[in-house]
């Protein structure tokens, strides 16, 4: 049928179409940047490529004059460490609470409403409370990331656990499995790949909370640098940093998907 929904672009066309929006944005940027730079060669809002390249060289490949360290590297390590610990803690909490909440009625009755309410509190709104409880150091930033995404992961995994066909649980019981055995042998193996899905979906929010935490009180990190540079409109540094964060986030997402494919092959069997 020659209907639009049935027409498939071939590989080359598909690749070309994919590139078009990116190229369009780059060209639009170049036009606007050129217009501003011809009016004011020192314009900071839309710097030219050479200025951006110089900023990248300065931040990534030359040691900082005052501290002697490579700023981009240092910022990346700080941010990824915070993000990694925060997401790991949230994943652990989410995994345990999610499975229990999804499987055990007494546990669900106790915590379901609570996590539901908890997930609706905007973490950024309770920042002063987090500060007073956890201080202003590294701990507070990790906690903000963990608190920010854990409720989502818990609720997501609880729903996935409830979706396990009841017949499976009954069958395991007729074969003599205890609650503990059902958790370990039936629920957890099925839930681990779903947990990775949940983490992947919450990575965007995790970055948001990390950058917010770094903007508020910090001495290094990708978010710290962006908010510091913003003070004097150094878009030549901010734009590469944004691109770098996007790349890191994309890579993390891709790595998790790859891990899921390799570690849980059974999920992909049949398709």
């Amino acid at each position, binding site marked *: 049928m020659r209907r*639009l929904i049935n*027409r498939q*672009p071939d590989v080359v*066309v598909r690749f070309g*179409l994919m590139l*078009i*929006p990116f190229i*369009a*944005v780059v*060209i*639009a*940027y170049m*036009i*606007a940047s050129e*217009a*501003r730079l011809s*009016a*004011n*060669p*020192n*314009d*900071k*809002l*839309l710097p030219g490529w050479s200025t951006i390249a*110089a*900023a990248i060289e*300065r931040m990534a490949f030359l040691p900082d*004059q005052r501290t002697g360290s490579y700023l981009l590297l240092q910022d990346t390590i700080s941010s990824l460490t915070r993000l990694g610990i925060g997401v790991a803690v949230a994943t652990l909490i989410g995994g345990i609470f999610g499975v229990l909440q999804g499987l055990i009625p007494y546990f669900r009755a106790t915590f379901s409403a609570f996590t539901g309410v908890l997930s609706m509190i905007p973490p950024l709104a309770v*920042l*002063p409370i987090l*500060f*007073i409880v956890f*201080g*202003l*150091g590294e701990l507070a930033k990790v906690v903000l990331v963990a608190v920010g995404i854990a409720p989502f992961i818990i609720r997501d995994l609880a729903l996935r656990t409830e979706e396990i066909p009841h017949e499976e649980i009954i069958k395991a019981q007729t074969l003599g499995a205890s609650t503990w055995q059902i958790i370990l042998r039936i629920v957890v193996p099925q839930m681990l790949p779903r947990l990775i899905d949940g983490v992947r979906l919450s990575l965007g929010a995790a970055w948001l909370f990390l950058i917010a935490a770094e*903007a*508020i*009180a*910090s*001495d290094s990190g990708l978010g*710290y640098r962006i*908010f*510091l540079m*913003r*003070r*004097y*409109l150094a878009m030549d540094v901010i734009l590469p940093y944004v691109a770098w964060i996007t790349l890191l986030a994309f890579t993390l997402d891709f790595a998790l998907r790859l891990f899921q494919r390799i570690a849980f092959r059974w999920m992909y069997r049949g398709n």
Partner: protein
Amino acid sequence: MTSFRLSSLRTFAAALVATALAFTALSPAHAEAKKDFKVGWSIYVGWMPWGYAMDHGIVKKWADKYDINIELVQFNDYIEGINQFTAGAYDGVMATNMDALAIPSAGGVDSTILVIGDYSDGNDAIILKGKDKLEDIKGQKVNLVELSVSHYVLARALENIGMSEKDVTVVNTSDADMIAAYATPDVTAMVTWNPMVAEILKEKDAYNVYDSKKLPGEIQDSLVVNTQTMKDNPAFAKAMTGIWYETMALMSGGDAAAEAAKAAMGEASGTDLAGYEEQLAATKMFYTPEGYIGFTEGNLAELTQFVSKFLFDHGLLGQDATSPDYIGIELADGTVVGNADNVLLRYTTEYAKMAAEGKL
């Protein structure tokens, strides 16, 4: 297949044009004679009179007199206002001399300080927890808004006692969170400004160990305008100057009207008359044009050099800057401090003089 490819190409071409148009909206405003002007301001003791003037018809009165439209827009985020001015979206903004030099001027936007409203005379302070001498700051983590006037105060204070920034660790902290941050146990040293300073000093273990009283005239709070816009539109400069000195005369009158005006300004900044008076006491206001003109005839050249040096040391004059003199600053009498070929910040008293002579 072909028709689909063509039509999608056309769609993308349209999208491209639309994006390009959206970006063109970002092109800088071309200076010329015009009628509508926008000026940004933010909450600060020395700038509250602008908000009062906007709310009580003084702005409209002067704008009508010169047959132009002036809109004063309040920014919740001080730096965002300056960034908008630098990008060309605003014709003027309230800023400190330091930020004016570091953001618009270093960004190539020729800017003029039309009126200095005041200088900080105690509004910016270094606070230590449980220690009462500045020397005790050595080795501590200091929470402050990095690269701001607070950072400048810290650098000047350390310089005065023979220390440098290497002796402390600076932790960038958002000004909105200073009071909450002070309440946490791991924060022991802080540099910030009013009204946060007044609030924090209420704690019994908080000591003000250094403040801007010791740096008279270095932190100026000004109305900064685009030089080209000002040259093309003297009416704008005249109206802004007129608005300011009428409001100043009103609030310094010492009568019931002055009290009412100050109470309104205090309320708009989240305090009351007493709280506002307290902040005014730490602010050296220039209530008359003569006050401002007299100040520019003093040691302004020396004061600007302290600021240039700080900015240069922190890489804020741009990557091309090879010395603190990289950007020239033209004083009110026409002398230039620094590079005369790259003058991007100017002080003018031309309009203040008109105000003094009653010619506005």
